[in-house]
Structure formats: C-alpha cells, structure tokens
C-alpha cells in the first residue's frame, strides 16, 4: 500500500509519540509576524527559555503596517509598539527579520514562497491560519496559536494529532473568466465551511496540475475557510521551476539532490485516502459570496438565494446573513452596488494576480463613487509590478496603488470600511465586521471579478465587462 505525501512528511518529522497519543512533530520552518508572536516571546522569557534554533524562524511585519504613509513613528502608537516589539524580540534572539526597509517585507504567506523559504516536504507553521498557503509546494503547513508559537520557539516542535486525508480532484478544464479563487470558493461551497474539520486536503486533478504556483497558493490558502487546517498539492516540475534560484532555495549540488528527494514525496498512485471527492472544472462559475461566511456563495451571474430553499436547520443563519448584508432573496447579484474594491491579501496579491487584472484593466476606469485599492503582497511584488508597468495601469484606471501588507483583509491598519460600506474583495473572509467596520459588508471574489466590479460600480461578471468569451481568457 502506497502513502500520501502527508503521511510521508509526517513520518519524516515525527520525533516521538507523546504520552497523550499525539505526535511530537519537528518543524522545518517557523514564520512569525507582529500580531501573534509578542506574547509567545514573553512566555519564553517568563520560563527562562531561549529560542532553540533561530536559523529556522523568520519574521516579517504585515498585519498592522500602514500602506500609505510609512513614516515612523506610525500615527497609531499601538501599531508602532507592535513593530518595535518584533524588532526587539528578533534582535535579541538572532532571528532574521524582513523589516520595512529590507526590500523583502510583505505578507508572511507571500514572502515565504517568493524567497524560497517554503520548500517541498517541509513542515511549516506560523501563528496565522492562512499558513495552509505553503501547502501548494507539497509542504505540510498549518496555523498555530500563540502558546504553540512559544513551543516552536523553545523546542522547534509541536504536539499534533494526525489528520485524515481527503483527496479533492478537479478534473477537466476551467472556462474563460474562471480562476483559482473561483475554484476554491466552489470547493468550499460544495464541501461546506465545516467539511474539512479533521482533514488535510490534497488537491489534485488536471485543473490543479495545470495551475501556476501562484494559483495553487490561492487554492491552498483558503483550505482553512473550508475547515481544513492543511491543504497541499503534490510537488511537480512547476514547483521546482518556481523555486530554482530563489534566495533561500538549495543551490548547486544541493539543488539536484533536493529535487530528487522532492520528487519522491508525491503521494503514491496506490495511496489510501480517507475520503475522495471529484469536481469538474467546466462546472465551476466565477463565484462571489452573498453571506457572512465563505461557504455562502453563488455564481456571479446568479441571484441572492431564498432562505426557504435551505434545510430548516440552516434557515435562521441564512436569514441573519442576508439581514446583515442588506440583500433581498431573489435579488440579482449584479444589482448590488459596491462602495469599495479591494485587491490584495495572502489569497490574491501575487504578481500573476496583478498581471492578469492589469491586462484587462488597461484603458478602463474605476466607476465614479467606488474607492479602489490595490495592495501588492510584498515589496518584491510591488517592485516587479512597477518595473513591468502594471502599477501604472492600476493608477491610470483609478486604483490607489499602495505599499505591501494585509491591509483591508482584516483592517488592523488604517485601511478599513466605513459604516455599512460594501466591499468587493479578493481576500479570504467575509465575516461580520471583518474589514474594520462592525457593520461593513464583504463580498469575496476573484481579482478579475473585483476589477470588473470596480469598473462597473456593482457586482459584475468579468466575462461580460472584459468580453472574455474566447478560449484564451484567464490563464
């Protein structure tokens, strides 16, 4: 009987079984940021412990950084204090820190891969649930709490229960205007926001194999929105080509040996899965959310659902969501006006996202009354986008071109919704109050749909706005 990648990586990192039946798991790469690490350093100090393997922890600052005026001290003294705490903690424990002036700062799940820190077969943790993103490389990557951040700093291990594995195959091909974001929103709608509890998701099939690394990261990123703490793809030539030459990737002879080892990590053809699901790429529409969790979604050319069409147990929840979103059952989604368009976050702020949008945005303008922001995922992404002229396309179209960070995905910095503004957003969470206003409304969508809606002034189908009928549309 063959093994899944998950089992192989797990076994290669198991230090021992703990008395309570969990496994003590070695962590290859630990990423930290300013929000979930300061308490962990304080706990370490309290117990008189040091960081055991500082060469395996890397830090950046992303959640609280302003994306316009970065002059220090920041206007928000709490944000400044968090940055200072991270500077002090990383300096004291000799942890590399990609600070604002490093040229490499960015969203933690964007910089890990682009610097080559993220590698196949690694175990990767971060005090951040979107750590699942790194699974796109065939890594076992998951979010942890702050007490576990302390455990990793002190021991480079965590106590973990092994998960079941569900293989999700997406076969066939995607239609024009359909992107990786639509694929994962469709997966979550199909399997539910609790469907992944207890599972690691293995994404496979023709559609996934055809995806670039950026696209795979978009899919793996939102595993957690489907309840799965881990999501991964088997590494292949696309993975190796992406990593080759990255600053922290293996070099020379090490590279050859690494690739040989990585190849052997992929799930065996006769591996046993705890569950299998197959989806067809052709059946996936451009998808947007209408509710207050990422599973409450519909095709962009569809209508707001009627609570009466849901099982009785879910009806109250759907009614509550529509009340909050100020949407009527049966209303066409394309009739919903947008106040803000946000293009950013660890889900969709990589160079290929911006390239794709810029290609269609050229020569178009953001509709009057829409505030449109693009927040690149990292300083390296921003620099490349400037070089390629992409930033200028966005500016010319009326988008505000900002500096990298998490920004309005969770609004811990000054970028936020006001009152009950409605944002069409390329981020990952549409929870109540998520984008900084307790009554603010979020509609999750692909970068293309965000751009189309920004141009139209209402939720809009990118196929219509951008005339994407052809075969070569969204690649």
């Amino acid at each position: 009987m063959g093994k899944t990648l998950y089992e192989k990586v797990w076994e290669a990192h198991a230090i021992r079984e703990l008395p309570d039946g969990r496994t003590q798991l070695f962590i290859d790469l630990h990423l930290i940021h300013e929000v979930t690490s300061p308490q962990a350093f304080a706990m370490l100090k309290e117990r008189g412990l040091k960081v055991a393997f500082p060469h395996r922890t890397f830090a950046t600052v992303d959640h609280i950084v302003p994306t316009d005026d970065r002059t220090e001290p920041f206007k928000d003294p709490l944000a400044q204090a968090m940055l200072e705490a991270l500077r002090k903690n990383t300096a004291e424990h000799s942890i590399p820190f990609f600070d604002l002036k490093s040229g490499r700062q960015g969203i933690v799940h964007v910089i890990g891969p682009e610097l080559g820190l993220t590698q196949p077969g690694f175990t990767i943790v971060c005090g951040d649930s979107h750590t699942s993103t790194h699974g796109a490389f065939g890594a076992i990557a998951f979010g942890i709490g702050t007490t576990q951040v302390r455990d990793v700093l002190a021991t480079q291990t965590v106590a973990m229960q092994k998960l079941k594995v569900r293989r999700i195959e997406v076969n066939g091909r995607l239609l024009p205007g359909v992107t990786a974001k639509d694929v994962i929103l469709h997966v979550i709608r199909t399997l539910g926001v609790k469907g992944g509890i207890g599972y690691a998701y293995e994404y496979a099939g023709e559609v996934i194999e055809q995806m670039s690394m950026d696209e795979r990261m978009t899919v793996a990123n939102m595993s957690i929105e489907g309840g799965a703490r881990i999501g991964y793809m088997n590494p292949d030539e696309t993975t190796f080509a992406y990593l080759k030459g990255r600053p922290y990737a293996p070099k020379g002879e090490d590279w050859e040996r690494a690739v040989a080892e990585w190849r052997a990590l992929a799930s065996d053809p006769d591996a046993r899965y705890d569950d299998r699901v197959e989806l067809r790429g052709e059946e996936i529409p451009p998808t947007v959310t209408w509710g207050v969790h990422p599973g409450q979604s519909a095709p962009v050319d569809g209508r707001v659902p009627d609570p009466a069409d849901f099982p009785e147990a879910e009806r109250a929840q759907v009614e509550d969501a529509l009340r909050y979103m100020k949407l009527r059952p049966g209303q066409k989604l394309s009739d919903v006006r947008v106040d803000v368009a946000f293009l950013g976050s660890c889900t969709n702020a990589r160079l290929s996202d911006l390239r794709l949008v810029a290609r269609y945005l050229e020569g178009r303008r953001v509709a009057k009354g829409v505030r449109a922001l693009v927040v690149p995922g990292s300083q390296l992404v921003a620099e490349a986008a400037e070089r390629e002229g992409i930033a200028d396309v966005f500016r010319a179209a009326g988008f505000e071109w900002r500096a990298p960070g998490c920004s309005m995905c969770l609004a811990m910095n000054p970028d936020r919704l006001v009152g009950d503004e409605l944002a069409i957003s390329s981020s990952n969470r549409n929870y109540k109050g998520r984008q900084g206003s307790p009554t603010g409304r979020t509609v999750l969508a692909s970068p293309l749909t965000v751009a189309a809606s920004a141009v139209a002034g209402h939720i809009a189908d990118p196929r219509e706005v951008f005339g994407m009928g052809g075969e070569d549309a969204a690649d």
Partner: protein
Amino acid sequence: MPPIKRIEGRAVPIRGRDIDTDRIVPARFLKTVTFDELGEALFFDERYDEKGNPKDHPLNDPRYAGARIMLVEAGFGSGSSREHAPQAIKRAGFSALVGESFAEIFFGNATQIGLVAVTVSPEDLGYLFALVERAPETELVIDLERMELQAGDRAIPVFLPEAVREAFLEGRYDPLEVLLEAMDRVRAMDEARAAPGKPGRYR
C-alpha cells in the same frame, strides 16, 4: 498546571452557528502585545453598538453575570488562529464551552490554555439552550471523570478526545515540559534536515 476534573457554574447561551474568531474578538483588539485586557473585547461588536451603548446580548444580561460555562452552536471558533479568542473567553471568566462542534485550531488553542471545550449531541444541546434560557440560575456541573454534564435532574453525556480528557485530568494540557524532554532527538533532526538557506544534508 492544576488538573481540571469538574467545572461547576451557571451557563450563558450564545446562539449562532459558525461563529468565527473575528466575532469573538474583532481584529482591532489584537493590537496589543499582551493578552491581559482581552476579557473586555469578548464579542465586543455583538455587545455594543457603534456609539458604545450595550446591545441586547446574553453577555450584557445581568441574569447571566458570573456564568462560567458558555453554550455555543456548531462550528464555533472558525476562521483565524488567533489565540486571543480563547484567551478572551477565559479572561472573561469562563472555564468551559459546551457545543456541537469546534473549529480545529480554536479547539487546540483552548485546550492548551486549559479552557475545556466539550461537545454534546444536537438534541442535548437544544435541551441545554432551552433550559438556561428559561432558567438562567440553573447550576451545571461538567464532570470530566464521568464524562457527564449534570443539568437539573439530567445527566448528559459529553465528548472530548480521550487524549485531551486525560491531559485535563492529569494537569498536562500545556505540553511544553514534555516537548522539552526530547531535545536530544530534536537536535539530531535539526542536524539531519536541511534548513532554508543552509547547505542541505539530504539523505
């Protein structure tokens, strides 16, 4: 760590499926380098309007003041890995959650700080909600040795993974001491496995 065997107290009913960690602690309250003040942030935007006036919410209802147990619905704690969520619940005076299912990261974070999160059947949960909404003064007892919840004259079975139950009973739900025992083996694995940016030692 003291063992946790029994939790006694009144319960507050928090209705709603798939309550996410952004609702438990809105992101703006994460702008802190400690967990100390988080009790105040618990369900803030559900409890107060934009002017800071209290809204109609069980946590603002004096009949539930001093409750130590929180009743919740399916999918509680979904979303972010922020430990701030269970920390806020604990610091607001709660020792246990009783629900139908919990998001995975939330459950792990709660367990590690000694906040007990047990599940009961949907029928039993419905009974408990009705009971404490009708009679907020009802004292509940969660007994982890017998895996039972006493509510009025009913004994309701509660569920926890066995390893977690034992960890509570034996007072070792925080694993750090145990993890530190194996540092020789950890050092050997650090040597054997490549680290990013370091020359590899691929076997």
